[in-house]
């Protein structure tokens, strides 16, 4: 059973001999635990996850009359954008004409439904950017159609194609620069819309693989909910629960990212690390608590716990590198050099031989 935040907080307070919270409060310890978790994830990068930059028309949420007016003034741009109304009153704001022409309010909740409104999508551009959430530390790999594509800087992208932001075609790279801290740009702008799965039925949970028409796999077990879909990596902070969305690789951009662990917001929140690594946080919090000036200040012990923390971070890093250090390398690399081939020359005794 994975450790919860309250497990570790109780352990720290107990070890500090302050279960009554006379010197250290549980809130303070919670903060230290969160700091330790963030630092471990930032320094050792143990968590790899998958994110999709979906090549689909974006659903468009419309909640005010002003937004509808704005859309109405630029029909060419708004064509294909799908708006979603959230209250029945909003529907009343639309005139009868607006309900049948652009912009159109459609209760779109998932990509397959947008297929029903294909008549309003021609001409619409696919999004050239996608967002990653704030937990993402770095992009480790990027793929399009299961093929590794380049991670470019804006300078690279400009040098390759000065119109990279507008040229459409098959994406060959991603740029995580220049569009904001959470926005990743696709180079080129995708020209083909990604496929989506057809879901049988209209409501409820995904029950088994057969609900997703494009997969054809046997179901393991006979009851309960679908836990995993073959061919798909479980995404998100935890791998329990049922899959909520199914992404297809074909014409989508898949990012493999290094991310932070799920935040420890509530006492029952699970620590997204195997137990042994969660226990590291307990000693980190001990070190921080004992380092605080005032009652309970123990500089020697604080320094000791901080040194142990540094050792453990290095231990995690070493385990992450283990396969890399065990592999057998080929002298000179396993790829052909990417330099220009040598110029053709005459053999050195050529002149003498002519004589």
């Amino acid at each position: 059973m994975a450790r919860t935040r309250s497990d570790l907080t109780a352990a720290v307070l107990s070890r500090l001999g302050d279960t009554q919270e006379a010197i250290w409060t549980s809130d303070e310890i919670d903060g230290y635990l969160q700091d330790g978790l963030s630092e471990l994830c930032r320094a050792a990068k143990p968590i790899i996850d998958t994110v999709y930059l979906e090549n689909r028309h974006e659903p468009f949420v419309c909640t005010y009359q002003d937004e509808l007016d704005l859309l109405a003034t630029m029909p060419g741009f708004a064509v294909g954008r799908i708006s979603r109304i959230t209250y029945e009153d909003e529907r009343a704001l639309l005139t009868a004409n607006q309900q049948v022409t652009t912009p159109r309010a459609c209760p779109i909740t998932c990509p397959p439904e947008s297929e029903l409104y294909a008549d309003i999508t021609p001409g619409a551009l696919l999004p050239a950017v996608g967002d990653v959430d704030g937990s993402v530390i770095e992009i480790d790999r990027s793929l399009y159609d299961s093929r590794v594509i380049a991670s470019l800087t804006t300078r690279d992208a400009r040098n390759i194609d000065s119109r990279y932001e507008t040229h459409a075609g098959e994406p060959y790279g991603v740029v995580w620069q220049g569009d904001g801290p959470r926005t990743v740009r696709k180079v080129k702008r995708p020209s083909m819309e990604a496929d989506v799965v057809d879901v049988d039925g209209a409501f409820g949970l995904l029950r088994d693989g057969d609900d997703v028409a494009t997969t054809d796999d046997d179901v393991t077990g006979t009851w309960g909910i679908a836990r995993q879909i073959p061919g798909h990596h479980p995404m998100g902070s935890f791998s329990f629960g049922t899959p909520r969305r199914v992404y297809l690789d074909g014409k989508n951009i898949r990012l493999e990212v290094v991310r932070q662990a799920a935040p420890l917001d509530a006492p029952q929140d699970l620590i997204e690390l195997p137990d042994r690594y969660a226990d590291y946080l307990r000693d980190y919090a001990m070190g921080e608590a004992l380092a605080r000036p005032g009652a309970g200040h123990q500089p020697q012990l604080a320094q000791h716990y901080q040194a142990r923390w540094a050792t453990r971070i290095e231990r995690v890093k070493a385990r992450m590198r283990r396969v890399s250090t065990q592999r057998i390398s080929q002298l000179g690399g396993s790829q052909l050099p990417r330099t220009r081939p040598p110029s053709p020359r005459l053999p050195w005794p050529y002149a003498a031989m002519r004589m």
Partner: protein
Amino acid sequence: MTKAEIRTKVLRKLRQQRAGVPFSEAEINQAIDDGYAEMSDASEWNEVVQLLDLLADRPYYDARTVCGQSLLAIGPAFSPTTSRWLRPVVVGDLDGNDRRWERVVSPSAAPDAYFTRGLWWFGYYPRVASDTGTVKQYFTALPAPMEDDDAPGFHDDFHDGLVEYATYDLWAQAGEATLALAAWTRYAAIEAGLVAHTKSRNSTARVAGYGAHAQ
């Protein structure tokens, strides 16, 4: 030494250092358990092996579901189909050699290499075409917690490490920095010995190459 014997020794040691030991039996047991976990974590002496079923459509396997929460690290892998150890590779190598390596299917219905992703995800290359075949996957993991009549799983020479760790841990909890750090120094020496023993315990029996031969 069994855990009960270790506890007795810890108590004796604590009493030698300070009259009136303010720790309960449960606290001493907890300190011994922590020491057992720490020594096992540092040395990775506890190797486990699992026979994994290969799945055609599994991008990465999760070591946490194979090993459980006791997982420490992912180890090497062996294919019973080909009777060969799989080559350790990193994803960067695979990306450099074939940008579409994820779609490569093994002609022999067995993978040739393994790689890790992060701390607990791992995968095999090339993938298999159907859900057949197995791989013997090695891991290091924490050992099961000891009962009173259990002895630590590692060599007897290093059992005193648990005594020193428990002494250190209990004094640290009591705020006795000098006593705790002295015990830690003694513990660290034993831990280093166990780490060296785990990594190179057969090195003296090894036959050297390049003409050198011990007489």
